């Protein structure tokens, strides 16, 4: 029987899949995927925190614009956000590297989702905590910063990790604006070799799966551990 699959295309290009032309050229492949995901995750952690706090502000003129923005972004496909960034940013600020365009789009998109996690985490803290803190004489921003957020953040950790998993998957869309992360590298190699699309896409699906599954498992483990600690 003729051999159905030929995985030599993977072994031949393995380094290229992993880090692109890194030591001699720009980072690519899995390395760039992780870079995009990690940087966007850190930025959208702060973005989500700010948006989340604004969206539960006491002042309507702060709350409503924040809510409108969050719902606007959540109502759009990520691809649309990337296109907006890709066409809007150069018009506003001149030329920007594609990597940064994608990081900004991912950050904007993920911040909107993270803000919901932050709000849920804050609302999960019993009201008595806030009341006790206010009666000890703390100002409302101090209550938030020293009492509510530190406890709320702990409950948010598993959801943050899940969001990071979504981010790893979402970085594949960077392909559309020509950022050479894993999916883009795969289509490049596919176009060059022509004959092994099945092998290539199965391989990168497995790579993504390993990355995402590791973090999904981590999030489950954290969820159990943190809730166990809470019960004590």
């Amino acid at each position, binding site marked *: 029987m003729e051999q*159905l*699959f030929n995985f030599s295309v993977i072994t031949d290009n393995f380094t290229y899949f992993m880090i692109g032309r890194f030591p001699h050229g720009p980072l690519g492949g899995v390395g760039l995927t992780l870079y995009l995901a990690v940087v966007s995750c850190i930025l959208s952690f702060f973005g989500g925190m700010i948006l989340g706090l604004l969206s539960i502000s006491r002042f309507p003129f702060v709350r409503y614009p924040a809510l409108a923005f969050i719902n*606007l972004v*959540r*109502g*759009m*496909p*990520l*691809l*649309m956000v990337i*296109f*907006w960034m890709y*066409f*809007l940013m150069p*018009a*506003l600020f001149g030329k920007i590297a594609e990597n940064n365009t994608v990081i900004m789009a991912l950050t904007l998109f993920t911040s909107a989702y993270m803000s919901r996690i932050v709000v849920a985490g804050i609302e999960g803290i019993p009201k008595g905590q806030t009341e006790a803190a206010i009666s000890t004489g703390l100002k409302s921003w101090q209550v938030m910063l020293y009492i509510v957020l530190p406890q709320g953040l702990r409950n948010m950790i598993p959801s943050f990790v899940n969001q990071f*998993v979504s981010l*790893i*998957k*979402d*970085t*594949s*869309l960077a*392909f*559309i604006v020509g950022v050479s992360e894993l*999916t883009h590298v*795969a*289509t490049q190699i*596919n176009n060059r070799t022509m004959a092994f*699309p*099945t*092998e*290539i*896409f*199965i391989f*990168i*699906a497995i790579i*993504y*799966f390993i990355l*995402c*599954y590791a973090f*999904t498992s981590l999030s489950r483990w954290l969820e159990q551990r943190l809730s166990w600690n809470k019960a004590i």
Partner: protein
Amino acid sequence: MLNYTFDWSIITSGKYFDWLVSGLITTLKLSTVSIILAFILGLIIAVMRMAHSKPVRWFAHAYLEFFRNTPLLVQIFFWYFGSYKILPTVINDWLVSTNFEFAAAAIALTIYTSAFIAEDIRSGVLSIPKEQMEAARSAGFSYLRAMQYIILPQAVRITIPPLVNQFLNLAKNSSLAMTIGVMEMTYQARQVESYTFKGFEAFTAATVVYLVLSIVITALVNTYNEKVLNLHKAT
């Protein structure tokens, strides 16, 4: 930005308007076909996930984890570029003779979404008290028939809101089909942009369409939650 002149007339009438409308229709068609298939597939996977036989349960679990933890874009590329080596020739020929881009996108969206729907259905089923199943079994129903007549009809009622949200996700996810040349909403917006250089107008139009879709669907879900599910609790 400062020397950009807006020209909304290009997207409100004429050729480009027709393009955008046809894009919207394709998006809705793709989402509707996929959600129906994904619901059926998701139902099957959910029942397998709760089956007694270990291999069946394990298979369903592996299916869920694999398709939930790989990017949709990669799955679309796999079905579009790479599926010919694993599919039988008959199916391949049939797929190629139809609109292959659409079919590949629909298959990828169906399988990706079915994994999420299966989990929604499972949590719906788990919310039904165990006694229901025990009562059905002692009344002589087989496991599958008990699922079919007793458990699933109740579970689906609770599962409708998450399912409708999955439809919304699907409609947004279907924008990825543009990468393999399905002429849906985002593709057409991009197309209008490249023909006219009026990117702001074209993307605004597409964004508004997605927003209206999401606002309408969210409102429907909220109404259902208030009217139907609360009513259910009260009785």
